[in-house]
């Protein structure tokens, strides 16, 4: 049997479900096909459950340092099973919440796998439920929001086995508390798990192929963060390539090459965090002739693909692989379909956050990138140690860095490392979005005492006017 809709969204992650709700708000009859959990990776296997784990780790760490705050805690310990149970509970609560939101907005949800075949206005969607029941969905527009998954490199043995070698998925529901953990890849995913297991007492080694951790961040920030990680006892190997993994019954030995010299590291568990690949398979995209570049669908930045009526948003449409980028793209795409004024995403205005200890948050151009693009720049810096609130919180390690175009006063980039910076970056994102210059930022009154005052000071510093340093 066939059902007709204005729009069908394939994938119920932060790109897909947000797009579906926006479409419903605009009066479209909307369907959403999700094969597993509403909320996608973000909510079930990514952003949210990792934050739950890190919240537990943070409290545990604070308990271990309670004496510094005049408190005494004896016999602090943890139960990994309960930490994970809490994390799963958080995901479940939110996933159910997404279900309610979709229902409230009258989006029809198909608990099914989708396949595309040729159609008239847009490809037809065949929803195949777990019981094998097929529903043909005919819509004027189809949005693919199928997301991405962990990249694996089988040739180098970088392939999860569900036991010793994990991806983020296994790492979120660990079958044991590893004593020795090897994390391959130092992007946001790798570093967050490294921080979590380090906080719980594991011996953690992070291997990064490039010359520094979190290589997309400003060098000064990633160097600052690396120093903090090392201070906390993390072993960090950069410019290091994993040549192979050798498994025994209970441990894995990795052969790692650094500067032409090979060394071996043995760990109880390995986490693979070497990037992600788009979910473009088994959807019928080849038959439709959808243009795909490596593992992502090529779009115009507002989701339009080369196939009539077919759109793609979020991770499957390419980097940056971030939930908020997917949601924003979903909204732009739907508004464009509805004939509203929509803008493609400006990648320079997409913030990025890493919830390690310390946290890292950034938006816009790094200092090096700005110079490379030929900007004459002014750089402002303000350290956490100069901020009253940071000292009161016992968080004196951190840095807020701003990069301005010396000629126009445009805020080109902002880079932060330290406590709670992920909650502050949006201030700079708003400023960039509204195209403020240094003047408006300097004229803004930041409340005292807050960590955000450092954002002000950093701007002042770029113009030689910082007060508290």
């Amino acid at each position, binding site marked *: 049997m066939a059902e007709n809709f204005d729009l069908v969204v394939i994938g119920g992650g932060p790109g897909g479900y947000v797009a579906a709700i926006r479409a419903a708000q605009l009066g479209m009859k909307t369907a959403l096909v999700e094969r597993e959990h509403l909320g996608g990776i973000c909510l079930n296997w990514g952003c949210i459950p990792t934050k739950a784990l890190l919240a537990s780790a943070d409290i545990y760490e604070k308990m271990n340092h309670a004496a510094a705050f005049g408190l005494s805690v004896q016999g602090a310990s943890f139960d990994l099973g309960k930490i994970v149970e809490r994390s799963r509970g958080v995901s479940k609560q939110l996933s159910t919440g997404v279900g309610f939101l979709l229902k409230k907005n009258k989006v029809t949800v198909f608990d099914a796998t989708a396949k595309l075949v040729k159609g008239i206005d847009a490809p037809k969607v065949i929803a195949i439920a777990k019981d094998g029941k097929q529903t043909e969905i005919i819509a004027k527009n189809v949005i693919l929001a199928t997301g991405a998954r962990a990249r694996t490199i089988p040739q180098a043995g970088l392939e999860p086995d569900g036991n010793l070698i994990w991806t983020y998925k296994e790492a979120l529901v660990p079958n044991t508390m590893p004593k020795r953990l090897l994390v391959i890849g130092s992007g946001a995913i790798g570093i967050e798990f490294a921080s979590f297991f380090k906080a719980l007492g594991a011996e953690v080694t992070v291997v990064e192929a490039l010359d520094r951790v979190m290589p997309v961040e400003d060098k000064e920030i990633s160097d600052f963060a690396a120093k903090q990680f090392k201070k906390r006892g993390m072993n960090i190997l950069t410019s290091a390539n994993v040549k192979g993994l050798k498994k025994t019954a209970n441990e894995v030995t990795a052969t790692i090459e650094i500067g032409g010299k090979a060394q071996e590291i043995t760990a109880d568990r390995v986490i693979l965090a070497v990037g992600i690949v788009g979910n473009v398979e088994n959807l019928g995209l080849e038959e439709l002739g959808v243009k795909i570049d490596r593992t992502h669908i090529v779009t115009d930045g507002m989701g339009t693909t080369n196939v009539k009526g077919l759109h793609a948003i979020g991770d499957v449409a390419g980097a940056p692989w971030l939930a908020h980028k997917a949601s924003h793209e979903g909204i732009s795409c739907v508004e464009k379909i509805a004939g509203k004024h929509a803008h493609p995403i400006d990648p320079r205005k997409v913030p990025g956050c890493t919830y390690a200890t310390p946290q890292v948050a950034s938006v816009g151009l790094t200092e090096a990138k700005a110079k490379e693009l030929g900007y004459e720049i002014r750089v402002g810096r303000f350290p956490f140690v100069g901020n009253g609130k940071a000292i009161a919180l016992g968080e004196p390690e951190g840095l807020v860095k701003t990069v301005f175009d010396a*000629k*126009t*006063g*445009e805020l080109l980039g902002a880079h932060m490392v330290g406590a709670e910076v992920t909650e502050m970056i949006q201030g700079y994102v708003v400023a960039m979005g*509204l*195209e*403020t*210059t240094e*003047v*408006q930022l300097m004229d803004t009154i930041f409340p005292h005492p807050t960590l955000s005052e450092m954002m002000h000071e950093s701007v002042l510093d770029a113009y030689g006017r910082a007060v508290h340093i």
Partner: protein
Amino acid sequence: MPIDILMPALSPTMEEGVLAKWHVKVGDEIKSGDILAEIETDKATMEVEAVDEGKLLEILVPDGTSGVKINTVIARIEGDGGLAAPAPTVAPAPAAVTPAPAVSAAPVSVNAAPSNNSGERVFASPLARRIAQQNGVDLASIKGTGPNGRIVKADVEGVKGGAKPSVASSNAPQAAAKAPATIANMPYKEGSYDIVPLDGMRRTIAKRLSESFRDVPHFPLNVDIEIDKLLEVRKQLNAQAETMGGKISVNDLIIKATALALKAVPEANASFSDEGILMHHHADVAVAVAIDGGLITPIVRNAELKGILQISNEIKELASKAKNRKLLPEEYSGGTFSVSNLGMFGIKSFSSIINEPQGCILSVGAGEQRPVVKNGALAIATVMSVTLTCDHRVVDGAIGAKWVQSFKGFLENPISLML
């Protein structure tokens, strides 16, 4: 308590105006209905009448101040003691003629400028403002692409970088590349000329027609029309009309034929916009009228629905109001098609500049006896040459030609005008 007198909005689109002249001075006792001042907009000069009474305490905006934003306090009167609520203190009275020198009948016409930018607050990001200032770009000349038309960095960079500037249709007095037409740049000796200051109307004519001629891809279509029959019908009509107190001109018949041709070929009754082509429901025919200091195009609305006598009377009234600069904004804005007739000056044929956002303008020459070939023999006929200038973005050659054919048909078989 003193009552503020505010700069009035004389039309729905007016954002600012020139405070041309005060008719009262400080200390005068003002009575309700007194003429306080003359305000000049880009179209007309109007008088401001007093609503409140009392002694004029101060004049805050002196004579001849231009760019006075609406609702600016321009003067204060004493008002009587306890009266609160300085409600609307002034009411615009559409009247008054500005003494303007130079008469010319340009074969062009001006419509109400959609004054989206002129003088109103320009919404621009701080960064866009700074980049504009650093590069000498006039923000008012840029169309914003940000939320609600806000001008953002990319808009300014589009202009300064030489990419196609998205110049708004009003308020771009000079093309970006062209040197400003200042007197200093001209090769005329000082003392060898008099300077006639530019009033609002002249500025509007200069601006809008420069833009139209530069930005609208236009082309002319010429045709000769024999009007002997038309003149005969007119004579008969006038015999009737005179008993009803009217007199029908050839131009009245041309307007009627224009309206009927627009009904027959509705594709020519169109306007271009970035969001799509506007197909107008009615033939609102703008008739160019030369007036002191310029020209204006009052509109015969729904002309396709009106009889010839009604059209004739309306044109007479509008032209007279125009000459006295008494036209109300709604009487000269929003036409869908223009007609400019220079036949009375003996002009044989000419082509006009498109009156944006209208899609076409018709230029009508003089009717004169000319030798024509009929059935292989020379004959004499009264012939009138007309030119239709079309905006090629909305009216292609074939459509323009179809319209001209239809128009010619109505005039050469004038009985069809009566249908």
